[in-house]
């Protein structure tokens, strides 16, 4: 993945402060400030100052404060579109969506802690919700376009829209679980979440206690009843 801004010429360093030279570095500095001061109270000036750069340089890395947690999302969406196009038609619709969603969230081990902070910000900062709504809509649009293509409908038709909304909901459920579970793997959680949705509709989830068939092994029984939380 390219790091936008890496090639941007930066002004000569200020006295006594090492200036950041990459988007990722600036992101990490911002996350540290958000942790310490809170997202709303941290200003762009604070972040630029901590990074030893000017306000103008900040804007070469990020168009706004809200865009720091979301990163280069448009580029990610393009990658997801390409991924969808690469599926041969014989791959069932929901399989393709599941695999693409898991791929979309694949992380190198060193990115994991930063991605946790990113997702905590996105999911738990009320001030970010309005901005995030637009991002979620863009993500859903990519899914709806794919479903529309596969089913010969407009992406605005009910089924593509519904599946896109539902899949986003499932992804958020997996993210929430991931944030609550120290050593969970995000890809595994997303994969399980999407499969369990299918199982829920097929009525193949574990039956209610006392329903008389509790001994029948189900795919679901492999899942721990309570995911460890801290």
């Amino acid at each position, binding site marked *: 993945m390219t790091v936008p801004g890496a090639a941007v010429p930066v002004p000569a360093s200020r006295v006594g402060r090492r200036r950041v030279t990459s988007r990722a570095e600036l992101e990490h500095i911002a996350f540290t400030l958000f942790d310490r001061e809170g997202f709303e109270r941290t200003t762009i000036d604070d972040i630029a100052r901590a990074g030893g750069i000017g306000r103008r340089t900040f804007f070469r890395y990020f168009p706004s404060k809200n865009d720091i947690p979301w990163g280069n999302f448009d580029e990610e969406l393009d990658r997801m579109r390409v991924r969808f196009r690469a599926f041969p038609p014989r791959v069932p619709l929901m399989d393709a969506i599941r695999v693409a969603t898991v791929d979309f969230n694949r992380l190198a081990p060193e990115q994991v802690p930063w991605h946790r902070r990113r997702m905590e910000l996105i999911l738990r900062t*009320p001030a970010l919700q309005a901005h995030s709504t637009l991002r979620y809509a863009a993500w859903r649009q990519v899914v709806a376009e794919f479903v529309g293509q596969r089913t010969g409908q407009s992406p605005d038709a009910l089924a593509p829209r*519904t*599946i*896109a909304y539902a899949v986003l909901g499932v992804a958020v459920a997996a993210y929430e679980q991931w944030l609550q579970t120290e050593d969970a793997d995000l890809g595994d959680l997303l994969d399980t979440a999407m499969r369990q949705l299918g199982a829920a509709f097929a009525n193949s989830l574990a039956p*209610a206690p006392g329903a008389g068939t509790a001994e029948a092994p189900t795919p679901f029984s492999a899942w721990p*009843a309570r995911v460890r939380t801290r």
Partner: protein
Amino acid sequence: MDHLGELSDAMPELVPQLPGPGRPPSTTRRQIQEIALEMFSAQGYDQVTIEALAAAAGISRRTFFRYFPAKADTLMADFDQDVERLRLALRYSDPRLGIMAAIRRAVVAVNSYQVDDLAHLRQRLQLQSDHPALLANAIMHYERWQDVVAQFAADRLGQPAEALVPQVIARAAFGAAYAGFMSWLCEDAGALGPKLDAALAALAEGLGDRAGTA
């Protein structure tokens, strides 16, 4: 089980209210919602104080807080009521139905929006898209809807509501219902119930070829 008590919590305007000091007995959450919608749209959300809202509704500030915890919550009165009705519909749902079928039936049965409400709904959504604070508040109310569904799924599965599967079910159901709701809102015609039913059916169908292969 205090069924009537629960019903009165869910549908305050259906049960007689005790007249309290300074509060006309007919004042309901719903009336305050309407007044708030009108005032926010006309004057701007930030300009309207709780005092002004309470005065327009003929209640005191203290009484206002008996109805709503905060100014932003006034717009969600109908929604909150649907959440309570959904909770009851799920609690008394046919135990022979599968989880998703029970949710689908309850969601369709509970929706109380009518075509007449369209103008109000559009106003509310417009206000929410103009004011991040209102949007963030609405999302909290949506979370409660999802909590109700997650709790139902959790009880059926004998798991905690925070576990992955109840959460997946709740968020997927909400997503589907919301898609149905938005599509109804765009069409300007027809009833909401069948739209919600169609959305949840579309989700089931989309998942159909994967059934049982988890």
